[in-house]
């Protein structure tokens, strides 16, 4: 997989390359925004529960491989 820089930092791009990069980046951002609003809600809810209980939230349970 390419790093963020490798994916979205384009040296001397053509207009078309820059446009395609913008589309891909918008998709990349949308995926992350949706993740905060979906998976994030579950994680934050579980985290709040763990804060008031004695049982710590286990990261492997939240983010299995």
């Amino acid at each position, binding site marked *: *997989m*390419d*790093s*963020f*820089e*490798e*994916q*979205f*930092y*384009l*040296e*001397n*791009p053509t207009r078309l390359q*820059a446009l395609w*990069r*913008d589309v891909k*980046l*918008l998709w*990349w*951002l949308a995926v*992350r*925004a949706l*993740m*905060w609003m979906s*998976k*994030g809600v579950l*994680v*934050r809810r579980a*985290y709040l529960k*763990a*804060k008031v209980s004695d049982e*710590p*939230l*286990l*990261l*492997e*349970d*939240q*983010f299995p491989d």
Partner: protein
Amino acid sequence: MKKKFPSPKLPFAYRHKPVSGNTINGLGETTLRRATQIFHSSGARKLEWARLEIFFALINPFKVYWLNLVNRWLLRNADGPIAAVQQPVVDARQKSQEIKALALELGAGVVGITHLSEQALYKGTNPQYARAIVVLLPMDNEEMAYVTTNRAGAETMRAYMEITRTVIALSQHIRSMGWRARAYCEGADLLHIPLAIEAGLGQLGKHGSLICKEYGSGMRIATVLTDMPLAEDKPVDIAVDDLCVGCRRCTIDCPVDAIGDRKQTVRGVEKWYVDFDKCAPYFTHTVGCGICIEVCPWTKPGRGPGLLEKLLSKRPG
């Protein structure tokens, strides 16, 4: 009055602890080598502490998370079109002065220039540039007084966005003169602190962050890599060690005792080192922590230059 910070007892844990971050960082290693990415991923591969990083991202308040995404959007202009005709640089020293003046005009607080050394790059990354223009931008101290709350987190992201705009505009200007230039902020390819030290902007403090004369550690760092011929600055001695050897403020205030009192050998270099395994989970729990930066005496607004004078006057001879 001593501030109260969140308890070091964490409501989350790993069932199976990952490889120690201190091992990955090369604590105790006597041979010089490049650093390995460990927490802030470039996205190129899954890191050993990836779960903690994702957890950190998802428990961030929406405002901070949103600002981070906006910053990523801005960063699409970190590189871009290069003018076809290259303007020759006759006097590198004069050009450096011009570039620094422009960076200040664009919002930077302090600017320095250095060569791009291999030790400033993470293992596996290889940006091919000759030198680095390192920019510091102060954060709002009044907002940062609220460290460990979302308010300070939002200020950190605001500063990142501002410095991103500065380095992007600077890189665009250099490219408009026909030279390659790429802005780096918040990314995971560069180690900004070693570059800032080499560029004469400050020294490493006991808390593992840069201390610069003007702002202490109350600032953010970003970098423009370029091939433009520029005169380079030299590292400076602003007596940070003189302060850190005797001062225990960050050591005492760190709720998880992550900051040691002695320098340690890390990847072949003796330097101040913060215990990753203690720091990173608490940093996550407090969504950005920043206690050590905030309590550092050098971070108090306007105190730096006077402190430097006092520390130097105490040196023998």
